[in-house]
């Protein structure tokens, strides 16, 4: 057992006849009688019994998918048609076939379970045929629904085909025209082939039981003994006469098929009846028994189905109950796909971190190296930042000092000269209205909070005693200790400053600084 077979879902072959169901799972199998209602449907009790019997056979493994049951049904109600479509029809083949089926069959396609087989087209003088030939096999859908229900209740997926056609798979090489006759208990199935393609399928209401009954009547023996005599196929003349009488009905049904030159027989009674049947059919017909292994309980239909599975992976013709479902199941077993996906995901989960590391490492290393090379720019940015911050912090607040002085200067003040330097020293020389004006001026300068020290170095009255010449010096506070000049002063007596220039940190310079002109030197008069 290899891994593939381990993961593959189990496949079971089932043949459903009119009176019994036979199942084959590997070497295990069973046969169950069928109970039908007058309309041919299975009884409820029969369904339950079949379901239980199948469940014992369908031992589904946890890791495998849904079991597929390849189910060969009897020939009763099966119709065959040959349909032609233009060779150009390639897409929507199913739709074209449905249209043809609707025209050819008495029932609408919705009520049919049907399948098709494309027949090999013959080339004429090397030219491809203008038409494509199809063999359509159909039967009423409700004939299969009971079976599908039973299989579905067991968790299996049913794939239906026709047993009469499957028997062809175990048929040896034969001439162009031949037929296979499966002799059942109460019913026989005849399918006629031409060049390996079924041309007619028919259920004959005649079975091995007919021979048994005739033997019992003619010989006056119990049915069990008659059955035994039938299978022994002895040379007793009375038995042969009775058998011929019983076979007369069958021969009558077969004689309508004059083209049959070779007849293959299958079924439990085939071996015992083949000699008499060949004699009754005449010298033109040759009868051969198919090696069906019916002694093991394996019918010709089951063996043919099994041969189909081993050769092609599925039956030659699949009857579809629903659109495209059976074909999908056959072509792509789900569990194998999911197992492969799971294995791929597990492998990917294991390998992706390593593969990512192996694949991405060179790119990351290169990128990191380039970033490290460019990281020297960070030092440049740091230098520029320190330089610009130093430049900003060391800009002396000359205009702010002028603004504060203009705000504090009393009317009539005249400033002759004003000197300021970067260290914060300020000195000015001017004249004011009186000593009280000087005192007020100095008080306002101190109250502004801008200056750390304000001193009057010299105060001299003018000769006319109307004004006072004054020389003052001051020192402004260092950056960070000075109040912003635009803020309202802490002392309520000091009026809010007029709109002045933006602070030093202003990002955009004003086009013209709006300084009060009356506080500038020479103007405060």
């Amino acid at each position, binding site marked *: 057992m290899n891994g593939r077979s381990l993961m593959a879902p189990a496949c079971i072959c089932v043949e459903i006849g009119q009176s019994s169901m036979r199942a084959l799972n590997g070497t295990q199998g069973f046969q169950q009688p069928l109970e039908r209602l007058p309309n041919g449907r299975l009884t409820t009790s029969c369904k339950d019994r079949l379901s239980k019997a199948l469940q014992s056979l369908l031992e589904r493994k946890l890791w495998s998918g849904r079991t597929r049951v390849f189910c060969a049904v009897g020939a009763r109600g099966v119709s065959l048609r040959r349909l032609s479509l233009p060779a150009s029809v390639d897409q929507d083949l199913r739709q074209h076939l449905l249209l043809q089926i609707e025209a050819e069959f008495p029932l609408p396609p919705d009520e049919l379970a049907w399948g098709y087989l494309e027949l090999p087209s013959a080339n004429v003088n090397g030219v491809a045929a203008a038409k494509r030939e199809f063999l359509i096999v159909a039967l009423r859908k409700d004939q299969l629904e009971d079976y599908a229900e039973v299989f579905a209740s067991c968790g299996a997926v049913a794939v239906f085909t026709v047993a009469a056609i499957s028997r062809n798979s175990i048929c040896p090489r034969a001439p162009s025209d031949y037929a296979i006759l499966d002799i059942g208990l109460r019913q026989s199935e005849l399918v006629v082939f031409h060049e390996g393609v079924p041309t007619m399928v028919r259920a004959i209401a005649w079975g091995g039981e007919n021979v048994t009954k005739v033997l019992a009547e003619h010989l006056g023996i119990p049915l069990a003994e008659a059955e035994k005599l039938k299978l022994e196929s002895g040379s007793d003349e009375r038995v042969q006469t009775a058998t011929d009488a019983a076979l007369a009905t069958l021969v009558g049904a077969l004689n309508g098929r004059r083209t049959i030159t070779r007849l293959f027989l299958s079924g439990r009674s085939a071996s015992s009846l083949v000699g008499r049947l060949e004699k009754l059919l005449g010298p033109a017909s040759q009868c051969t028994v198919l090696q069906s292994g019916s002694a093991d309980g394996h019918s010709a239909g089951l063996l043919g189905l099994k041969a189909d599975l081993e050769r092609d992976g599925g039956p030659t013709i699949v009857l579809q109950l629903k659109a495209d479902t059976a074909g999908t199941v056959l072509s792509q077993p789900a569990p194998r796909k999911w197992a492969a996906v799971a294995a791929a995901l597990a492998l990917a989960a294991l390998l992706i971190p390593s593969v990512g590391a192996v694949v991405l490492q060179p790119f*990351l290393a290169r990128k990191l190296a380039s970033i490290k090379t460019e990281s020297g720019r960070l030092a440049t940015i740091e230098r520029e930042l320190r330089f610009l911050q130093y430049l900003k912090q060391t800009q002396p607040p000359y205009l702010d000092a002028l603004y504060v002085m203009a705000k504090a200067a009393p009317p009539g003040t005249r400033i002759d000269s004003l000197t300021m330097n970067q260290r914060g020293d300020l000195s000015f020389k001017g004249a004011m209205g009186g000593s009280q004006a000087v005192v007020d001026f100095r008080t306002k300068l101190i109250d502004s909070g801008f200056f750390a020290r304000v001193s009057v170095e010299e105060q001299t009255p003018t000769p006319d005693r109307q004004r006072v010449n004054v020389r003052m010096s001051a020192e402004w506070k260092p950056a960070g200790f000075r109040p912003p000049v635009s803020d309202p002063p802490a002392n309520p007596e000091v009026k809010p400053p007029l709109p002045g220039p933006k602070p030093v940190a202003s990002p955009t310079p004003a086009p013209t600084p709006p300084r009060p002109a009356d506080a500038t030197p020479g103007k405060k008069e």
Partner: protein
Amino acid sequence: MRTLTSQEKRTVRLGVTGIAIYLILFGGFKIWQFLASRRAEYRNLVAQAEGLEQRVKIYEGKILVVKKLMGDFHMDPAKLTRKTGMAEASSAIQKSAASGGVILGPVRESPGRPSSKELGSMQLEGAGPVPAVMGWLYHLQSVGHPLIIDSVQISSDPTRPGQLKVNLTIVVLDFEQWTKEVPNA
């Protein structure tokens, strides 16, 4: 060569199977070791990249500040050259004075002190109306060169009412001499 017995065939099969399993396990172990080492190197690189990212993130704020200051001063320090810095600064100052309506008088330049990271200093004398002088003082900060006005002397001109005489001492900083330590302000 004689035909192997079934026992010998079985032994050979077992041996081949064992060797195959050993090779698969050994090869797998080696491959796993190789991949593990590459993963470790990759993780190391990722850690370095994350550290670098953290370092760069700090600079994002600094870059914004630098951009703002450069906009305020109308200056890109990287474009300042030492050789022509003094001449360009002098030209910019004089253009600023002329455009502001300040008439400049004598301009004296003197070399700077390397210890103070100065490119040089200038002494300028000028005269003009009050608004022009004030505007010029204001615009000197944004002429595109690292200037610091060392001292200002403003006096009235008795002969020309409404006119001011201004005497400035301006220091031009040398960016190339700038080091990480900030000079004492």
